[in-house]
């Protein structure tokens, strides 16, 4: 241990150590001189004698230097330098090997950085491992309503009770969005939209998030419902170019003026996956209600569960302890307004703590496809390593002679091995460096492509991951040279190359083994990519029950001084009339929940005043505008569409879908029955429409009822849907101008063509495209490996082919000989790969739509595809073998 310190201290104080030694030896010489003088030797002679006895002092100091430094380190540097030279001497080999490795490592790094961001990484706060989301299983107590995910929503009252419990949680902070979507706001003359959240006063202090500029909230801000705002760091950088002078400016959220008091710390954009742009303290004014709700205030109504909670465990507390200590408080608070206890047949409600990791509980949604992609890139890395291993093996067998000579003139095996190891370290290092750059570019593209709202920039965990891969690869490739060196030591290398036949055979046996494995892996990837592609085709071709082409959809949120249904209805009627008159707009309507967004109203149906009999009375509903079905292109099978004349005070009407009729009114006259989502009002059925998808493509047919929004009431943000004559996006500027004429402060929220919304299959799209890309990459690598091996073996066997030709072998026969070798290998690979693909595809089952995981068409196409590619790869070397000139070939040796 002390020796290590001395070495390190020597490295940093080298001059001092040498000076010490110098002065020590000078003293020695002087003392010797004096001694000799006392013995009567002449001074000149004495000096010479003293010097002689010391010998070469410079050499001495060098010895000393060597003793105190790591020879190993210096040797390693020398090895690296030498390897660099030898790699540069063969730039084609080096660049192919580095690029191949870079592809493999880069793909792994990119996918891992997504996994890290989505599933693993903690929030950018101090001690992120202490943060937990508060959840309630299986949802709010019966009899209560909820907005948001029922698992993650609480009432304001329950929050107030939970926050007083400090034994296991040092803080419980609340946050709730101002709306389902982004919120209209204005900082200056031009309206825009942003994600706005209301939070409790201890939100920032509880999470441990400081301010970049100004300050964050304090408990007083919450108590006074202060008109202040804190900006998200990313939003601040984007919108205000990171300028701190924004603090003190006014911001109009839904028309209400607030003062910006600060900016959150760098990297912090909320605790949910979708970044928050602006935080304001919990508000009490109806205009700034939770979720933009118009019906009930979250402060007054303990039955409305809508607030999300995040907590910090006290150091040392476990999840179970914390859950136990909160259980009693939670039960009391949850049922306080329900007579104190659950209904007799009610499933018990439980407070659960979920660690805040990655993008939180939503990460589960991405888990399966991500692990699938991770498996795929892992396979790619294997294939890439196989290729490079074959390259290395070919190279070192070509260098047998060099090794033989080096050993023969006294190079140690150890040193030779170290040098080869340095070479593979260099290769894998360069591969990792280039791969890292690939990954950086890739993850940016990925993030944009997926519309995934998570920060994908690689962090330290990702770097560690990549470094680990690099080292593993280096060690793996280091083992190959070990064998080479051992073989070279037998001294065969210096003999004529025909003596190498034996070694050559074992080398090519290894190469064959690798190739078969590669083809098998390539087939597995091809099959899974094929399955996902066909599944995506099914999703895209799925009958949605409506015509998406030419539909433009966007949200509007009216900013009214004193919100009332009458005013909101008047506003929307005005907007609809205005939009209908635009040239290019064929018809216009609106709806509460945007179709394809995943949001829906779910309840038990009431038919003629009571729940219909049968297994399930579940029904989805939506409140919609006039001409809804003709605008969306949904067939009206019986009765009529909604009309402008269905006004707030005219007879209440409803329209149901086919499945509703099949399930609840089979064999009955449908029109005239009463349907409702609430016991307070009943609506007369005036029409039946064909089934159409509501939440997403994968939705199974479910009973649906539609009600006129003017008769449902509680009108807040609505989604406007326009049927246009041409390209929906081309109409967007005209629509903006029209809206601005009547409401200058209003932004169009998330405008897009209904087609682009693609009915919630963005993820399928992404996974399938990535899978296609990766399997193409894999097949390319396999093909290049096969090509390289065959080409190499043809070049090694040039003289053999020459002899064969000389004794009468025809060119087509030679062509077939080489081609057959390639085909045999691929056939073997396919034989191994088929069962593997069969086993692997089962894991894809849950992601497939409209086909079985063992789809024979996909398997057939994949097998034929892989065979064709292998045939193509083998053809060129085969052609070369067939075109060998026997005279030159025989002189080849």
């Amino acid at each position: 241990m002390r020796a290590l310190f001395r070495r390190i201290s020597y490295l940093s104080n080298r001059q001092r150590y040498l000076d010490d030694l110098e002065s020590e030896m000078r003293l020695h010489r002087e003392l010797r001189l004096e001694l000799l003088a006392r013995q009567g030797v002449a001074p000149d002679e004495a000096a010479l004698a003293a010097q002689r006895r010391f010998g070469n002092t410079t050499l001495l100091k060098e010895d000393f230097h060597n003793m105190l430094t790591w020879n190993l380190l210096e040797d390693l540097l020398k090895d690296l330098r030498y390897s660099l030279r030898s790699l540069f001497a063969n730039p084609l080999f080096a660049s192919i090997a580095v690029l191949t490795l870079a592809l493999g490592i880069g793909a792994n790094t990119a996918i891992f950085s997504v996994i890290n961001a989505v599933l693993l990484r903690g929030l950018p706060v101090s001690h992120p491992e202490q943060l937990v989301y508060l959840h309630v299983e299986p949802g709010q107590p019966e009899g209560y309503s909820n907005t948001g995910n029922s698992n993650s929503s609480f009432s304001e009252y329950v929050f107030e009770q939970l926050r007083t419990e400090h034994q296991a949680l040092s803080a419980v902070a609340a946050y709730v969005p101002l709306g389902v979507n982004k919120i209209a706001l204005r900082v200056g003359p031009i309206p825009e939209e942003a994600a706005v959240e209301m939070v409790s006063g201890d939100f920032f202090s509880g999470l441990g998030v400081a301010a970049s500029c100004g300050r964050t909230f304090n408990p007083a801000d919450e108590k006074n419902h202060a008109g202040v705002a804190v900006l998200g760091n990313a939003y601040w950088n984007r919108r205000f170019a990171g300028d701190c002078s924004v603090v003190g400016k006014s911001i109009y959220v839904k028309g209400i003026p607030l003062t910006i008091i600060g900016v959150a710390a760098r990297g912090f954009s909320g605790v949910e996956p979708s970044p928050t742009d602006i935080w304001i303290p919990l508000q009490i004014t109806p205009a700034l209600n939770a979720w933009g709700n118009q019906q009930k205030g979250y402060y007054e109504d303990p039955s409305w569960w809508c607030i999300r909670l995040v907590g910090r465990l006290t150091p040392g507390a476990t999840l179970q302890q914390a859950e136990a200590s909160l259980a009693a408080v939670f039960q009391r608070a949850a049922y306080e307004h329900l007579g104190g206890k659950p209904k007799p047949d009610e499933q018990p409600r439980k407070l659960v703590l979920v660690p805040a990791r990655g993008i939180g509980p939503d990460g589960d949604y991405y888990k399966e496809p991500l692990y699938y992609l991770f498996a795929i890139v892992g396979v790619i890395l294997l294939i890439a390593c196989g290729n490079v291993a074959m390259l290395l093996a070919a190279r070192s067998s070509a260098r047998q002679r060099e090794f033989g000579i080096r050993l023969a003139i006294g190079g140690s095996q150890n040193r030779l091995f170290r040098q080869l190891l340095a070479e593979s370290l260099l290769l894998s290092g360069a591969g990792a460096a280039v791969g890292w750059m690939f990954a950086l570019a890739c993850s940016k593209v990925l993030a944009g492509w997926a519309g995934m709202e998570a920060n994908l920039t690689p962090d330290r965990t990702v770097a560690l991951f990549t470094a680990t891969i690099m080292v593993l690869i280096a060690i793996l490739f280091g083992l190959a040279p070990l064998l080479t060196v051992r073989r070279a030591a037998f001294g065969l290398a210096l003999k004529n190359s025909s003596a190498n036949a034996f070694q050559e055979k074992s080398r090519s046996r290894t190469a064959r083994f690798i190739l078969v494995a590669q083809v098998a892996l390539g087939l597995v990837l091809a099959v899974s990519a094929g399955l996902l592609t066909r599944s995506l085709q099914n999703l895209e071709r799925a009958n949605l029950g409506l015509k998406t082409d030419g539909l433009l959809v966007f949200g509007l949120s009216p900013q009214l001084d004193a919100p009332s249904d009458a005013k909101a209805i008047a506003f929307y009627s005005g907007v609809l009339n205005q939009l209908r008159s635009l040239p290019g707009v064929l018809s216009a309507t609106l709806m509460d929940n945007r179709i394809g967004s995943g949001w829906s109203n779910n309840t038990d149906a009431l038919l003629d005043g009571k729940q219909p009999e049968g297994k399930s009375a579940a029904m989805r509903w939506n409140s919609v505008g006039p001409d809804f079905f003709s605008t969306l292109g949904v067939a009206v099978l019986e009765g009529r569409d909604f009309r402008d004349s269905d006004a707030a005070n005219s007879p209440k009407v409803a329209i149901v879908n086919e499945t509703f009729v099949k399930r609840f009114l089979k064999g009955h006259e449908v029109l005239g029955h009463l349907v409702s989502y609430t016991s307070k009002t009943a609506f007369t059925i005036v029409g039946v429409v064909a089934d159409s998808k509501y939440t997403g493509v994968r939705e199974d047919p479910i009973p649906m009822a539609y009600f006129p929004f003017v008769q449902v009431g509680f009108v807040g943000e609505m989604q406007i849907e326009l049927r246009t004559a041409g390209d929906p996006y081309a109409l967007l500027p005209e629509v903006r101008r029209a809206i601005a004429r009547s409401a200058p402060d209003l932004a169009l929220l998330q405008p897009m063509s209904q087609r682009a919304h693609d009915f919630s299959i963005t993820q399928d799209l992404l996974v399938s495209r990535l899978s296609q890309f990766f399997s193409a990459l894999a097949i390319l690598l396999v093909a290049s490996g096969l090509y390289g091996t065959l080409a190499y073996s043809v070049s090694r066997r040039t003289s053999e082919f020459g002899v064969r030709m000389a004794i009468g072998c025809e060119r087509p026969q030679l062509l077939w000989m080489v081609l057959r070798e390639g085909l045999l290998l691929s056939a073997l690979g396919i034989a191994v790969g088929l069962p593997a693909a069969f086993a692997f595809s089962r894991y894809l089952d849950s992601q497939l739509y409209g086909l079985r995981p063992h789809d024979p068409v996909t398997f057939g196409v994949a097998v034929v595809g892989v065979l064709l590619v292998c045939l193509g790869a083998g053809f060129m070397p085969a052609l070369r073998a067939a075109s060998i000139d026997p005279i030159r070939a025989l002189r080849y040796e």
Partner: protein
Amino acid sequence: MQPTAREEIPQGTLDLLILKTLDRLGELHGFQIANAIQACSQDVLQVEEGSLYPALQRMLLKDWLSAEWGKTPENRRARYYQLTREGRKQLARELTRYGRVSEAIGRVLEPA
């Protein structure tokens, strides 16, 4: 006066000699060590300075010796070496080894 025939120190025994000298005489600087070995061997063994100092450094590194800068009686700066606990253990080990080897050599030579 006929000078005594001087011998180089046999390979591998320099460490042993240095350790033993320091063990007997305590704190010494390099020149004193060389002189002491020469004197004790009655001028037969002569320490080459070229091998003495590297040996001292090596032993410092192995933690057998400790060194400290001090002043000679003539008030000159010198580095004084001293045995450590580890060094004493090493001395014991080397003595045993040396005893075994010289005994063995003796047995080989005796019958001749």
